[in-house]
């Protein structure tokens, strides 16, 4: 498929009927919380969109994001969109390797300089370039170099968005997120470990349709997908509201699908669309499968105080602190008490007798 075909032509070649395409646009519109009227606009824009050039750079990552996005066992509409774009460079997916692969990347950068989309997954080590390089070029340099010509950058996965697992304490590689290094380009953080596939394609679709990045929250994540917390949309919320909690993973509560708050669920402090779009085409999502949410779309979720410790529990040993404090307090109290007592007893010893003649004020 040459680059000059429009997205619409490519999709028709792949047998996607006009109606199927319009259905996709309507789904995307609703997904993006856009008004229904936008569906035809999306369809028109996608119809005419030139095949965008996409460069996918993978740095310190586990390929989970790519895996999540490109499951091959069932062609989904997201997959079609993904095929539709001109993915010019992706280590895992591209056939070329070695210098040929790098040549392809440079070619793509030159050819559509200024309007290709840079997708990054994985965090960027800063302590020592040697931790992660591609073809002898450090991740950091490659990112800076490639970002210069990018129209927009999509940081896929919590690693790229916030530093993710490599960034977790003690962060030996000095891993940082894309937005820590790139300050002058619009960056869309699509956090999650991995993020939900439809969120990635949704963001691409938005960019293709409007040529601009969607509304972002304070962490640079598309509000459409990360506006609400899991807790707000969790189907087990009524149990939380009534105080019915699973105490262990296979007790009565867990079996009857009660709230997993006590098992460490981070739903209340995690923003993602898992509870609504769910995973594997709406099959389920972690809480529905009986496991508390880990809060993977939040920065530093790995150091968030223990996956199985409830939000309301302390993250340090308060008991021990209290014991030390009691010891210290008792010692201080006894000492200060003794000082008071000595002062009072001294006052008594130095008591000046008050007689009836001392009752009148001094003249």
């Amino acid at each position, binding site marked *: 498929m040459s680059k000059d075909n429009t997205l619409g032509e490519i999709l028709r070649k792949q047998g996607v009927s006009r109606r199927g395409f319009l259905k996709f646009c309507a789904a995307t519109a609703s997904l993006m919380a856009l008004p229904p009227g936008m569906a035809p606009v999306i369809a028109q824009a996608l119809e005419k969109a030139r095949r965008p050039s996409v460069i996918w750079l993978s740095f310190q990552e586990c390929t989970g994001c790519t895996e999540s996005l490109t499951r091959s066992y069932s062609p989904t509409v997201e997959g079609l969109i993904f095929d539709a774009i001109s993915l010019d460079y992706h280590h895992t997916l591209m056939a070329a390797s070695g210098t040929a692969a790098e040549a392809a990347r440079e070619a793509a950068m030159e050819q559509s300089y200024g309007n290709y989309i840079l997708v990054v997954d994985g965090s960027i080590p800063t302590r020592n370039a040697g931790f992660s390089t591609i073809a002898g070029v450090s991740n950091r340099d490659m990112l800076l170099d490639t970002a210069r010509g990018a129209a927009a950058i999509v940081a896929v996965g919590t690693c790229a968005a*916030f530093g993710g697992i490599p960034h977790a304490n003690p962060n030996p590689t000095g891993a940082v997120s894309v937005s820590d290094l790139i300050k002058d380009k619009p960056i869309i953080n699509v956090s999650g470990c991995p993020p939900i596939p439809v969120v990635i394609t949704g963001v691409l679709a938005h960019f293709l349709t409007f040529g601009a990045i969607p509304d972002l929250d304070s*962490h640079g994540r598309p509000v459409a997908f990360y506006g609400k*917390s899991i*807790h*707000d949309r969790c189907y087990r919320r009524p149990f*939380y*509201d*009534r*105080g019915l*909690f699973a105490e262990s993973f296979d007790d009565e509560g867990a079996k009857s699908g009660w709230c997993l*708050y*006590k098992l460490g669920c981070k739903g*209340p*402090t995690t*923003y993602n669309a898992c509870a609504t779009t769910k995973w594997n085409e709406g099959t389920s999502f972690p809480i529905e499968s009986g496991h508390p949410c880990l*809060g993977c779309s*939040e*920065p*530093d*979720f790995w*150091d*968030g*105080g223990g996956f199985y*410790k*409830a*939000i*309301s*529990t*302390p*993250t*340090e040993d*308060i*008991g021990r*602190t*209290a014991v*030390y*404090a*009691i010891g*210290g*307090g*008792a010692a*201080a*109290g*006894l000492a*200060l*008490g*003794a000082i*008071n*007592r000595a002062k*009072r007893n001294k006052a008594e010893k130095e008591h000046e007798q008050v007689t009836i003649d001392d009752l009148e004020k001094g003249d």
Partner: protein
Amino acid sequence: MMTETQLLVWLRGPALQVAIAIFVVGVAVRLLEVLVLGRKADLAEARGSAVAGGMRTILMRSFPDRATLQRAAFTEITGYIFHIGFFVTLLFYAPHILLFNSALGISWPALPTPVIDATAVVTIITLVAVLIHRLTNRVMRFLSRFQDYLVWLLTILPVVTGYIAFHRIGVTPPILIAIHIISVELFLIVFPFTKLMHAFTLFMSRYYNGAIAGYRGVKS
């Protein structure tokens, strides 16, 4: 910039440790400063038992005599409501019990969350009524100093912020939970320096009161 997760982890960790440390050391010091001063033995011939009298008053002073109840019904009733409400909300809300369990190792059954929710509302309304009473009642206005109003604020904040955090009103929830934890830690830190100490010293005061009277054969 500290992210919300880091903030919550810090608040539930080091910050809570500091607050607990100040609270425990402060209370211990205040209590020992009183106890070490001590009391001279009574040389008069006893009529009743001081210890029995002291213990009795610790319990019985919680029940006002009928006449006082009539004269100061508002103070008495609002006092019971917001104290009981405050403790029920604190001690019987499931997530709080997890907190106590992880800190102290003991646990107890929780009340249904809607009950706690209602109790919190009642407590807040009563505390507001108590503030109005403190501002309008002749005696209370005369007695009240800055500290009385500060302690009122520090007492109502945890309940209000907890209610808002639970119902997730306004800003993003992690911040609401953070604010709630901060208000609790403020309460703990200021506790030993204010009249909140009465939560501990009232037992000693009632004991002394009852002992002095009990020694003389009076049920105080």
